């Protein structure tokens, strides 16, 4: 149980590192707008 939880935690950390970079935020917003328009 602990092993998969630790793995999930590591993945979450990696995602969080990306989300703390403003360029990924801009990319995400632009991608959304392209999709909906």
């Amino acid at each position, binding site marked *: 149980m602990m092993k998969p939880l630790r793995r999930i935690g590591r993945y979450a950390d990696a*995602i969080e590192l990306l989300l*703390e*970079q403003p360029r990924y935020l801009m990319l995400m917003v632009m991608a959304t707008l392209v999709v909906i328009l």
Partner: protein
Amino acid sequence: MNEVHWAALAGYPLLATLQLLPLLGALFAADPAQGSPGGGRRPPVCGRRIDRGARPLRAHRCLDDSVMQFAERLDLLAYHAAADGISVLFILLTALLGVLLAFYGMARQQVTPVHLLGVLLLIEASLMSMLTTMNLLWFAAASALQLALIGYLLWRWASASEEKLALSRFLQYQFFGWCLFVAGAVVLVWSHADANPLGERWSFDLFDLLATPQIGKYQSAAFYLLFYGLAIRTPLFPLHGWLPNSAGYGLIAVGPVLLLGVKVGIYGMARFLLPLTAEAVVIWQPYVVAFAMVGVFYAAVLAFRQANLRRLMAFAVVSHTSLIVIGLFTLHPAGVQGALLLAVNFGLAITVMLLMIGYVYRRAGTTNLDRLGGLFDRVPFIAIAFLVGGLALLGMPGTPGFDAVHLVLEASIEAFGALPTIATALGNVAAAGFLLWAFQRAFLAPRPKDLPARRIARTSPMEYAVGGAALLVLLVAGFYPEPWLHLTDSATQALAALFHP
């Protein structure tokens, strides 16, 4: 949408007073002649004035709360302010937080630099302006002022050497979010002007926009721009990237309380986004709720992995904010009402916890959980206040969160079914784990050797007063929630009626 002019309800323009009093206080605080320590004791007086000003709201509770009340207009400046059941709790909370922060500053001996007090009052004025305006541009302008002032606080009084990182992330994200909001407002107003059968007329006023036909073509774009702008402020997963750094390395309590205590992002969604882009809200509701559900768990997992109390709180905020958004986007009367109550409850609970973290930092010089422990013996009141704040975040009976979470989950079952609701409730329970774990490590675990008991000062009378006042409001509102439910009932019903006519 109907409104009642202020003259019919009060002897003076109440909402303008709410905005101008803190401004006057700020001017007074900025006066060099008031730079003496005595001059620093002004804000509580100003806070009391705000509370006094709020009395007529209660006196006229017999009016239908979905009707805009105390309306004020000044066409020359496109000024249009009013209050209803959606804004009234946020206004009361803002007034309360202003008073608490002023006293907190005094307890932490932060009031001596008088201009800190001036900045606090200016932020209070901008928050009041955001919560009372009916104009998208005024909302954006007040938001820009508030963010600039909090950026100044971060720059001037950050508590860690990584303050530049905290400040740059804060400014980058908030500026981008603000631009998105303004772009969304422009798209919305332009489309409305284009679709208006009476001829092209640009107006950012909520009443004018609701009076013209709903736009179809660009509504999704307007929805996403406004939603992203407000979601960055709120903050909502995955747009929360500024918060962990700003909370971890910036100000300990004052800045986060001003940003997170009053959830203007949630208020902006209820006030502007839902009524103005109703068709797009229905189309995109499943995606927003899906992201919010992921956010509840994602933030809970990350909160478990934090070694710093402040970063842990930041992820707790992201997790619980997701629950508010789920409630709001059920588009159900109970869900919307629950979400608004939850936003106010979380604001108050987070405020209590952040203030207590500030007091812990004052004693221990750190908020790192590895270097904390055994504080309960020396400062039991601070420990208990932190615990009650944490339990209020969970929605324990006896706190306003209990009724609010109940309403949100009830609406969620009706809107999305049992399984997603159970998952959301489990996420909320997971929050219990990390908050109790943090409480155990900071207050009950053995005290580290580099934190001797003599270094931990006993709780001061001012700290008792600040924590006690916040706890009192939290518990009274929890044990007697009827007035708050009654205040918000008609307005939330009217908002939900847009989606369930």
